């Protein structure tokens, strides 16, 4: 890759390279090391949350099973949900964002490297506070949504609930700090020529997502403090017998909670928007529409929260409004699916493991998106909410969507991060076992919900087919376990024996592929000239540069 002199870059990264060994990580303010630590930390919690899920699936494999006590089961589903959301999906996506955004915009580091480190360590601290509850009377057991009054001291007297409140409070601070850092980085540190209309879509999604975090997380943190004051200082925000309102908590929680769903999916959209074009050999179809639809989704996501509350009995007027806004959000989401699919048309598709996960994402996420529409149809929500149909829906969004996209992203950027390729051989096994295990676990749960099985039950009666369908789901969960073990093996073996990646193993066009793998501490000496969205394409095909060819859109 012939580097071209670009206008000089201002500022240099702080020099901490003198540290060695573990200290070079703990004391690091390098965005790449912090990004890797986010990913590793999240992967450890992914293992923990996965084991929690497996224990629940074993308990549910048979009707009237007594493998777990109800209290243990409730702790497990509370911790599984909280862990996967706050300690796995968010930090994994943040890790990729923190690693890639400076590289993609041609910067040497984040705008605030020390704040970057602080955000990470606060987030880890929050996770430790949350898990410390196991050593102090038991984990929280009121669900990841912790509805009042069940989560009030009257009904949850153990300190587990307080660890939950404090842990999430810390994570919320770390998340907002990290988001502000990404926003400032994208606004301020773009290399010359990198206008907002030329940003890689992964950066666009991370940028919009960071705004969403800044808007949504403080709502949660405020509510957490109110509940903590209720519990520890005997206030009555959410206690009806003293004039408080239990529904108020739900409004706060979902005013955060629904944007949160998009916080967990927008960066995944960003990954897909990078992977599919590269392996199709074509630019993204409708760049402007993909970016604009992201902004639309972010705005709409702030006005749909009460669709989590259709069963509360708020009245038809509320239900109609939030049903309509929830349906509206399907439009920009659909636009994305169509654009990604159109990108593949007329291309030369290379089915690497990364691309296979990305294509599977298209189909799996479509299932989750469509079942989501059935919840915007208010009367269907009245039947289906709080059943296994909803469990299936959310896993098609967050696993079939986000986790599949994360695997696409990890297979795609692992060579950049480590300098070595992941094995395609083990990768294919990883993909197929994930795909089969995932669908085996969750497809049948749609039907269980339609049959009347509520969620969050530690056991269930032996009604016709309930046992066999649940057993099938449990077997699927063990196939998923196998697939994750294959992935760990692949990482392990590839770190030692993987082929050397070189700067740009996939023929990518964004700036991270212009530097070495792994990149040096300060990322670039000089960045290539940026006169379009695909600087490395322009460099390789000067006669076909995007600016010359023009855009049909």
């Amino acid at each position: 890759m012939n580097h071209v002199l670009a206008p000089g870059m201002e500022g240099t990264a702080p020099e901490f390279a003198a540290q060695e060994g573990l200290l070079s990580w703990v004391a690091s303010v390098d965005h790449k090391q912090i990004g890797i630590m986010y990913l590793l930390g999240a992967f450890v919690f992914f293992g923990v949350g996965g084991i929690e899920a497996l224990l629940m699936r074993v308990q549910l494999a048979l009707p009237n099973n007594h493998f777990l006590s109800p209290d243990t089961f409730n702790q497990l589903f509370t911790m599984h949900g909280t862990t996967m959301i706050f300690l796995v999906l968010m930090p994994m996506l943040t890790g990729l964002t923190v690693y890639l955004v400076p590289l993609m915009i041609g910067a040497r580091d984040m705008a605030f490297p020390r704040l970057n480190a602080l955000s990470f360590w606060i987030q880890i601290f929050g996770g430790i506070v949350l898990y410390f509850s196991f050593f102090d009377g038991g984990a929280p057991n009121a669900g990841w949504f912790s509805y009042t009054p069940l989560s009030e001291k009257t009904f949850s007297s153990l300190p587990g609930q307080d660890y939950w409140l404090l842990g999430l409070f810390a994570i919320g601070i770390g998340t907002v700090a990290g988001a502000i850092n990404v926003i400032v980085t994208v606004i301020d540190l773009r290399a010359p020529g990198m206008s907002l209309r030329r940003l890689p879509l992964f950066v666009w999604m991370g940028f919009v997502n960071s705004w969403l975090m800044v808007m949504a997380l403080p709502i949660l943190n405020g509510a957490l403090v109110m509940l903590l004051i209720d519990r520890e200082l005997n206030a009555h925000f959410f206690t009806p017998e003293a004039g408080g309102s239990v529904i108020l908590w739900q409004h706060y929680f979902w005013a955060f909670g629904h944007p949160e769903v998009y916080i967990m999916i927008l960066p995944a959209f960003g990954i897909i928007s990078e992977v599919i074009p590269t392996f199709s050999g074509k630019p993204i179809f409708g760049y402007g529409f993909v970016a604009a639809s992201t902004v639309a989704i972010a705005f709409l996501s702030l006005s749909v929260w009460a669709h989590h509350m259709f069963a509360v009995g708020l009245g038809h007027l509320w239900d109609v409004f939030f049903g309509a806004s929830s349906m509206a959000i399907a439009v920009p989401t659909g636009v994305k699916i169509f654009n990604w699919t159109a990108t593949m048309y007329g291309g030369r598709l290379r089915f690497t493991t990364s691309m296979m996960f990305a294509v599977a994402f298209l189909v799996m996420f479509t299932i989750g998106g469509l079942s989501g529409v059935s919840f915007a149809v208010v009367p269907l929500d009245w039947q289906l909410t709080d059943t296994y149909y909803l469990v299936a829906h959310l896993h098609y969004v967050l696993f079939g969507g986000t986790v599949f996209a994360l695997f696409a992203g990890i297979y795609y950027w692992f060579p950049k991060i480590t300098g070595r390729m992941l094995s395609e051989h083990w990768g294919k096994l990883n993909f197929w076992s994930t795909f089969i295990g995932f669908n085996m676990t969750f497809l049948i749960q749609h039907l269980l919900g339609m049959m009347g099985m509520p969620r969050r039950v530690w056991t269930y009666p032996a009604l016709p087919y309930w046992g066999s369908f649940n057993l099938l789901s449990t077997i699927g969960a063990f196939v998923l376990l196998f697939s994750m073990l294959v992935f760990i093996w692949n990482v392990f073996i590839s770190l030692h024996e993987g082929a050397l990646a070189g700067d740009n193993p996939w023929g990518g066009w964004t700036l991270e592929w212009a530097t070495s793998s792994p990149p040096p501490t300060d990322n670039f000496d000089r960045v290539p000239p940026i006169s379009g969205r695909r600087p490395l394409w322009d460099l390789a095909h000067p006669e076909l540069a995007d600016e010359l060819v023009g855009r049909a859109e």
Partner: protein
Amino acid sequence: MSGILTLNPLSPQAAAISHLFVDILGVLGGIFLIVLVMVGYAIVRYRDRPGAAPPRQVFGSRKIEIVWTVIPIILLSIIFGFTVRSMHASDPPITPGTTPDLRVVAHQWWWEADYLKSGVIAANEIHIPVGQRWLLELDSADVIHDFWVAELARKIDMVPGHPNHIWLEADRPGTYLGVCAEFCGNEHAWMRFRVIAESAADFDRWQRAQLQVPPKPSGSEAAAGLKLFEQNTCVNCHTILGTPGNQSIGPDLTHFASRTTLAAGAADNTNANLYRWLKDPNSIKPDTHMPNFQFDDADAKALTAYLETLK
């Protein structure tokens, strides 16, 4: 099909949802097939083959973008229209001032049913006359619960400090499974109930029987059981008409033996199960609020005999 409760409606309200559900499933399934075919075609047709020409660099098309933005908007607008219409059919508006027929109060983890017009108090089994549309008031004594009988009506939360109302009716006589659908603590799983719809005559007979004060038990074992009930702290939580017990912390037991299940659906109401329940409630429903009284075998047997007289 009958096992798929949400598609097996037995009331006009549930039927309105079920019909909409089938239509929406068809539409969503159709859209999914379109996406599947589009993606499937792309991965077969455009798979990289040796010697293929480099792909043309296409950046998009405003026309196509408008098409796949506008078509979903039209489709969703139609769905929205059907949504609003069936909201009215499945959850008909209630004229203000209508007196409820039945008040259901959810407790951790059982159901209290107060028949407001006749004064009957039942638990975990709700009898209604077939073909009559009853107005239910739903309330909670502690945390948030949710009242859900999939074959008969929408689900709706039971929120402390915020009473909700729904219509309940059944087209045909039968027993319909109900369940708490909002997580409400450790025994959320065993907070089930049954709605028993019967002819007007049968319902009247049931209601009259429920209003009777049970006669003093005649057998000596059952009489001993009554004494145990009165002397122990049973009376601090349970009501049995004709005894000092008049509390509603636990289910009203006045006509306990007329019910089909025990502990809100955790077991069938048989002699053996009742005995086991009295000896060790946790063996049937772990973490139930019913305490273990450490009854010896004779006492447990006497109480069983007494409770089984409460037809």
